[in-house]
């Protein structure tokens, strides 16, 4: 894949991430947004783990996706490295969140899973590929 294709793919993934995390953040705050597609959403969103120091995890996700989007738009070697760094942190945290849903909260929230199992791994792979592609160009 060319760097342009990778960059475009990253932008698409980040936009999807903003969408999903934005929805989850909205649901977290809007008391009346009460319909969810699996029985588990409410359990996950209302669990003790839905907030980190008072900040909704969904909001952290939203901010992270926005940061990725900005970095993809900015596009410098530093931005690429930062994106990959964020991706690694996100990947580790996503694994943790999946474990929580499956084994601790015992409920699965479909939208959280889309984020943790589809979007974050895509982000990680794409941003690392991009870093490698850049390296191939830059190194002697």
């Amino acid at each position, binding site marked *: 894949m060319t760097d342009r294709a990778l960059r475009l793919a990253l932008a698409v993934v980040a936009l999807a991430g903003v969408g999903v995390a934005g929805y989850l953040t909205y649901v977290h705050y*809007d*008391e*009346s*947004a*009460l*319909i*969810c*597609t*699996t*029985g*588990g*959403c*409410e*359990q996950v969103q*209302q*669990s*003790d*783990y839905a*907030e*980190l*120091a*008072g*900040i909704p*995890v969904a909001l*952290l996700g939203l*901010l*992270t996706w926005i*940061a990725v989007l900005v970095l993809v738009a900015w596009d410098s*070697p*530093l931005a*690429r*490295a*930062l994106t*990959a*760094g*964020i991706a*690694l*942190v*996100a990947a*580790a*945290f996503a694994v*943790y969140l999946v474990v929580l849903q499956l084994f601790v909260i015992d409920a699965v929230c479909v939208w959280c899973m889309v984020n943790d199992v589809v979007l974050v791994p895509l982000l990680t792979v794409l941003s690392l590929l991009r*870093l*490698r592609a*850049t*390296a191939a160009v*830059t*190194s*002697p």
Partner: protein
Amino acid sequence: MPPKPRVSTPRTKQPTPPAGSPPGPGGVSRRTLYLALGGAVVVALVLIGASLIFAGGDDETTPTQTTSTPSTLFDGIAQDGTMLGDPAAKVTLVEYADLQCPICRQYSESILPTLVDEYVRTGKIRMEFRGLHFLGPDSEKALRHALAAGEQNHLWDFQEGLYRRQGEENSGWVTDDLLREVGDSIPGLDVDKVFADAGSQTVTAEIAETQRQAEAAEVPGTPWFFIQVGDAEPYELQVSTIDDFRAALDDALAT
């Protein structure tokens, strides 16, 4: 807030890697790369640690431990078993709910009162409560007593009282004392009879029937709503705000 601190390592002069350390991706030295990787791991661990600590730390229980004053929400409105409102109304709003479900409580607190005032009290629609107990044992105990109160035509008062005292999921919050408190707050309810009827065959059969209906209608979670016009097949609603409900009900009333 999460991603920021990680990359404090200088990464500004990529084109000239320090001698002795081969350039890594992006022209960044391998050492910087390892630092960044280590940084990422540390940040992730800090986040996870913080999440675990904060989740374990605050055990904020019941959001609304409100008053034992009797609710006046349903005063003057006919209650019949699981039904609320004028039997002559041709539109019925059917709600599948679990008495332990926090979102059901939110609906009952923030949307239900308005709907009752605008649509039920005015005789336009009826409401039907269909109780499920998929969240756990507290759900079933609460549901049994609510249905038993329904046999005395006080189900709606009872479920409202339970929501107002809702505790943390499956924490054992549905105690006999709490049920008695809810019952005592409802004028005209024979609380001893509620306790006696909660374990009855009638209630058991009612729960099984609702469970069957929910499965047939493929109810995916709670609260979940259907509208039934006359004897027609009920149809599912996609609603979340009070305005969605108004639009759906007005639509049904117009047919």
